[in-house]
């Protein structure tokens, strides 16, 4: 595996008034890795994702995607340039069909403009056909093609999670941010998800960042894990190192008297 750095945080701080959600956080992620971010509740895990995907503008520090500085880029441009994400609380477009959810996510890659749209040019129709075909392929890959026409909001919870991943893939990302993809799943479902994430990584050659509470998943699939606590980096290391680290145990379970 080559060691090209894809994501880099350099002393990033994110303050909300007096609350220091992230304080001087630095880490980097190499291409093709599955990088886990864990920590107790309120440690700033999701804030890392929000800073990375452009929802928040960091108070200080620098965020890089390859050699692009992301700090002041608007969210849609960040996504368009190759970082897609899912949400902790599923945020699909519930009234739209699964296929339309996928198509919306193609926005950043569509060439035709307003004039082409209004005149309904051949180029526009061709592009629309291609998009439909591409999106169906992604759905097929995730085993969702039979739900293409169903309303996203009408699907059961587990499938909605899957559609969210599909929608993120539809943005044609290089980096995929998964925010608690296993929340509310039982062990069998988690094992499925485990396989799915590996499959996606290998097929689309992605770098994956994963925020998760389910240790079963994190320990299984992550190449590297970052532990954050109170917005600060605690330790970065391989799953085995994390499992046996005294400080991490203390952060989760409290100090032994």
């Amino acid at each position, binding site marked *: 595996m080559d060691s090209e750095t894809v994501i880099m945080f350099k002393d990033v701080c994110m303050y909300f008034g007096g609350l220091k959600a992230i304080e001087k956080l630095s880490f980097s992620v190499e291409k093709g890795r599955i990088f886990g971010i864990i920590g107790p509740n309120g440690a700033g895990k999701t804030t890392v994702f929000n800073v990375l*995907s*452009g*929802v928040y503008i960091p108070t200080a520090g620098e965020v890089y995607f390859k050699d692009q500085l992301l700090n002041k880029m*608007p*969210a*849609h441009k960040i*996504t*368009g340039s190759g970082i*897609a*994400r899912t*949400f902790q609380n599923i*945020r*699909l*477009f*519930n*009234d*739209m069909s699964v296929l*339309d959810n996928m*198509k*919306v*996510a*193609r*926005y*950043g*890659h*569509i060439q*035709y403009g*307003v004039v082409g*749209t*209004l*005149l*309904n040019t051949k180029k*526009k129709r061709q592009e*629309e056909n291609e998009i439909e075909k591409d999106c169906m392929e992604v759905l097929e890959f995730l085993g969702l093609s039979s739900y293409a026409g169903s309303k996203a909001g009408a699907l059961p919870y587990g499938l909605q999670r899957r559609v969210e991943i599909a*929608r*993120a893939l*539809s*943005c044609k990302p290089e980096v995929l941010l998964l925010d608690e993809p296993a929340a509310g799943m039982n062990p069998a479902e988690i094992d499925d998800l485990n396989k799915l994430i590996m499959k996606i990584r290998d097929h689309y050659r992605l770098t994956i960042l994963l925020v998760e509470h389910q240790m079963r998943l994190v320990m299984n699939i992550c190449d590297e894990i970052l532990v954050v606590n109170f917005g600060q980096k605690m330790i970065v290391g391989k799953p085995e190192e994390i499992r046996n680290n005294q400080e991490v145990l203390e952060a989760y379970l409290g100090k032994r008297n």
Partner: protein
Amino acid sequence: MMIQYIGIYTIFVLGINLVNGYLGIFSLAHAGIMAIGGYVSSLCSMYFFKESWMFPLSLLIGGGTACLAGMLLAIPSFKVRGDYLAIITLGFSLIIKSALQNIEFVGAARGLRPIPNYTDLIVVYVCVILSILAVKAFIDSKYGRSLLAIREDQVASELVSVDVRKIKFVAFSFSSFLIGISGALLCHLLSYTNPNAFGYTTIVDGLIMVYLGGIASISGSIIGAAAWEILVQSLRTIGTWRWVGGGFILVLVMIFLPKGICGNKEITIKGIREFILKAAAMIRRKGERGKEGSYGQ
């Protein structure tokens, strides 16, 4: 005359529907936008384009000016949402109206007359068909999808690479263009206009037609415009009471069809065929059951 009204209001409602329906932003600017479109094109026809074949030019200039106003209106929608945006857009409509009432050049409260009577059935329906085709193409594109996505979850749309500001900008300008055109057609149909034609009544009429017909639907826009116009005109015989009657019918429709007559749905040829087939199958089944019943006896 009523047929022409229906056509003009169809364009008007299509325009409103783009922002209020598809984009889900409660805007009340349509009266002001319509006034701009109507006044600008009327002035053009009165002073510059005095031949009837030049009418398309003044139509386009009216629509274009309205479109510019729409672009301005899109800017507050980036930050402000919900009720506050409704107030801002309402303010816009009222400002336009009182400005027209006080500018001597456009006749102040007396309004403009005589505006050349260029609007006829053919012009109206050519415009209607063009608008329907354009809106249809717009809705079936990345723009249309993004409108619906923004209506459901603006942050999520932004995070799947939708340029929310651009989409709002485009939607507001296209919507205002259509509303401007409808205003221009209306002024050239009536041969006169005054600021009172673009007051609260216009705002309310526009909203009623959109929500009666159904939001986010092209067929809904046509049905809404036609239904309300026919209702208002046919109740004319009962004088002022028609507003009571019309309102009452509106309440009934909203109780039994809360999404409007065809909200979020389209009437298509395919849909109609399926409906007929389904109905036929049902009748046949009923008939067979009837026969079985008679055998049983």
